[in-house]
Structures are given as C-alpha cells and as structure tokens.
C-alpha cells in the first residue's frame, strides 16, 4: 500500500453551474444541466471572472480551467500566497481536444491561433496566473484525461517529485464540426438524451466544463491547518490496445485498471462503497464497463455496489469528465450521499447487474472504515484510468 494524498481544494465549471458546490448539490437534487441535445455552461460568464487579455489569450476550455483553478486554490487557502516553494508545485490539466478553433482570432490564422489551440494552454494559463513553477503540461487520453491528470498528480506528490499539484481537466468543444464527427461515428445520441445503462440508451450527449483539484501531502495539509476534503487513495490505468474509438467488449483491460487502482489504494472490492461510472450512455461503453466491473470486483460485489453515472446530468465532458467526476465522487464519500443516474428508468437487462442509483442515496455506513469510492474513466482509444477516492 502506498500513501494517500490530500485534496484541499476543488473547483468546477459545468453545465450545472459555476462552482463545485452547485455541481454536487444539483446532482444530488436530481437536476439536469442539459439543454436541447447538449450540456453547455450557460452560467459561465467569462467577463465576470477574467480580464480582457485573459479572455483573448485563452480558448474557452482554458478559461474554464482558470475559473475552476481559482476556486480550488481559494478553497485550499492558497489565495494569499502559495504555501510551498513555487518551483515545487506542478500543474497538469488534461483535455481531449484542447482549444478547438471556434471563431475570431483562433480561426483566422492570427499569432494567437496556435497558442489558443495548444492542448497545454490550460496548464499554461493556470500555472502562469498562480506562479506555479514545477513541472506543468497537458495530458490527453481523450475522455480519461482528467483522471490521468489526477493520477499523475498523486504519483508526483507521493514520489516527492512535487510538493503539491494542481490537477484537473478542461474541455470546450461544442462545435458543429465536433458534433458532426461524433454523430457520424455513431457515438452521439440521435435523440439528444443521455440515458446511461437504460434499455433505451442510444449514445452520449456532449458537454463542456472543467474540474480542478489541489493535491498535497496529508501531513503538509494538517501542518498548515488546511481543510481536507478527501483523499486520493489510488490510481490504476491500462490500455485496451483494441480500437481507435470503441472499447474492447470483453472489458478485461478496464478491469485491470480497476484492480490496479484498488491495489494502489491498498484496498479491495469489499472496501468500496460507491462507483461513479464512466457511463456514457453508448451501447458499447455501458456494456463493456459493467462487464469490467464484474471482472474486477466479482459478480456479487459488482451487483451490490451503488453505482451511478453523472453524465446523465452533465453530458459528456470528455477531457474534463474524469476530474469533474472525481470531485463528485469525493463529495459522495465525504457527505455519505451519492448522486443518481438521472433519468434511468429501465436498466438494460442485457447488461451485467448493478445497484443503480435512481435517486440520491445515503451510502451504507462504512463500519469503522473510510467511505471509499471508485471513479472510472474510459477514453476513446482504450485509455482506462481509475481513481480510488476516500473520505477525509
């Protein structure tokens, strides 16, 4: 077993609103952030949060990352100054597509076109604004990128490569070009509904947003009197080596990632209380994912473990999904209340059985143990990234 890392701040921009608290509260209230066929961050007003130059110099995904990071660092108590030497604080922000050219400067071949497109531009924005001078970069494992960033942060803090890490994911790709491509690939819901695990599921709904977390050593957080929101206990990853977009139907490598995450956390299937599934609502993902959970956790435990996909309410946030869902999972294990898979009415009997949450539910008391959740992220290209997250 390797040591846990403390989460001392979280921030989110999602279709449910600006802020991590509004995200988790609305999820548990059974509210949806989806508009017609997509999850847009309609509450996000860049002018409210960013100066003119920051707006101009950052694509929408990087703007989301800046706002989410601001919230996370404020909550961590870093606003008045960094608690550690700047050179020892790293920053990794995952993204699937980066700064997809929208309009204006980005789309017209200006000097800003490339800097706005760079997938690392969100990490640049966050590290520059806060003066974080440790290693920084983007990680880009498609829809697993946000979880990969947190996994990297966990490893960096554990190994001592960094004293603390600002990690997360960001995505803003609600463009006709991207929508058409996903639709043509058969991944997007033609009916514009996201119904993970339901008999009637027919694809995902695109979302956008960002999630950012501040990670530090538990002893450091305690020493400076910071509030600890939860723990990153373990991370596991694997690759399907199967297909450019489709998950491997057998779920074997996704299961391996779960087993690795549990081993890294020093726990086992009996030590879990909740699963925040990747749950995109595509026929293929949901089938392979539940199969992988059965493989990794055992049929009995997999069937009995409360599980939900919050993509039903946020849409698919791609490279931001893993980070936003880690924040959701941390809230669930901290508060003991997990959010539902919104709109799930008839779980598909062809899928492996699971204890689907149809409404928010109080998780079983851990009986002296730490309430612990699993957050699954399975990206296009077969990137499987799994986090084990615990109550403080």
């Amino acid at each position, binding site marked *: 077993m390797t040591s846990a890392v403390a989460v001392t701040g979280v921030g989110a921009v999602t279709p449910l609103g600006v802020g991590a608290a509004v995200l988790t509260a609305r999820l548990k209230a059974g509210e949806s952030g989806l508009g017609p066929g997509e999850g847009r961050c309609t509450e996000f007003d860049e002018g409210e949060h960013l*100066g*003119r*130059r920051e707006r*101009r*110099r950052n694509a929408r995904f990087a703007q989301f990352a800046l706002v989410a990071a601001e919230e996370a660092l404020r909550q961590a108590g870093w606003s008045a100054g960094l608690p550690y030497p700047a050179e020892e604080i790293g920053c990794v922000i995952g993204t699937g597509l980066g700064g997809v050219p929208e309009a204006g*400067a980005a789309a017209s071949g*200006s*000097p*800003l076109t490339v*800097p706005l497109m760079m997938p690392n531009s969100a990490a640049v924005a966050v590290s520059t604004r806060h003066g974080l001078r440790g290693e920084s970069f983007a990680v880009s494992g498609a829809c697993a990128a946000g979880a990969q960033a947190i996994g990297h942060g966990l490893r960096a803090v554990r190994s001592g490569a960094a004293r603390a890490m600002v990690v997360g994911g960001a995505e803003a790709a609600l463009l006709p070009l991207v929508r058409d491509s996903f639709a043509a690939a058969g991944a997007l819901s033609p009916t514009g509904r996201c119904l993970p695990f339901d008999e009637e599921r027919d694809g995902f709904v695109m979302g956008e947003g960002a999630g950012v977390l501040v990670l530090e050593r538990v002893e450091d957080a305690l020493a400076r009197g910071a509030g600890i929101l939860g723990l990153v206990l373990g991370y596991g990853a694997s690759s399907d080596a199967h297909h450019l977009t489709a998950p491997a139907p057998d779920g074997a490598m996704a299961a391996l990632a779960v087993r690795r995450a549990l081993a890294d956390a020093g726990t086992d299937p009996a030590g879990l209380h909740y699963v925040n599934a990747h749950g995109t609502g595509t026929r293929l993902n949901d089938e392979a994912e539940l199969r992988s959970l059965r493989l990794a956790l055992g049929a009995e435990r997999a069937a009995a473990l409360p599980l939900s996909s919050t993509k039903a309410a946020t849409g698919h946030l791609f490279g931001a999904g893993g980070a936003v869902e880690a924040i959701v999972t941390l809230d669930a294990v901290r508060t003991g209340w997990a959010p539902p898979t919104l709109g799930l009415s008839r779980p598909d009997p062809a899928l492996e059985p699971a204890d689907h949450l149809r409404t928010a539910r109080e998780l079983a008391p851990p009986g002296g143990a730490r309430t612990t959740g699993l957050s699954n992220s399975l990206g296009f290209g077969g990137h499987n990234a799994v986090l084990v997250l615990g109550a403080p």
Partner: protein
Amino acid sequence: MSVTAEAVLDLIRVELVESGVEEETISPDAKFDDLDIDSLDAAELMATIKREYGVTIPRPELAGVTVDQLVARIVEQAAS
C-alpha cells in the same frame, strides 16, 4: 483610396484596447515599448496592419517608435 492617419490611429487604438491596454495610455506620443503589451500583442497588431493596409513592419523597427511615428510610417508605406 488613401489611408488616413486618423483611420490608422483608430485601428491601433481598437486593437490595443482589445489586447487589454488601458485606452488613456495610448497617446500619439506614447512609445510603443512603454505600452502594456507583450510580443504576442505586437505580433497581433502587426498582423492586423498587414491585413488591413498591406504594410509589413519588421518587429525590430518598432523599438523606440511612438504611436504617432508608427501611424505616419503606415500611412506613408500604404501610399507607396
């Protein structure tokens, strides 16, 4: 159609304000180097000037130049 100094100055003002420069600091005798801009802002402005007037001004030649001098040079080159 000839390019007027007023039109060029207006364009420069609009571009620089868009880049985040405080409008009152953009006076005709303000030195370009003293404005709150960096290399990307300057590159953007030069790209706009090239697009609008077909005038290319090499970056090193911006050193020490005032806004007024820049405007005059653009007008002159655009006319030639």
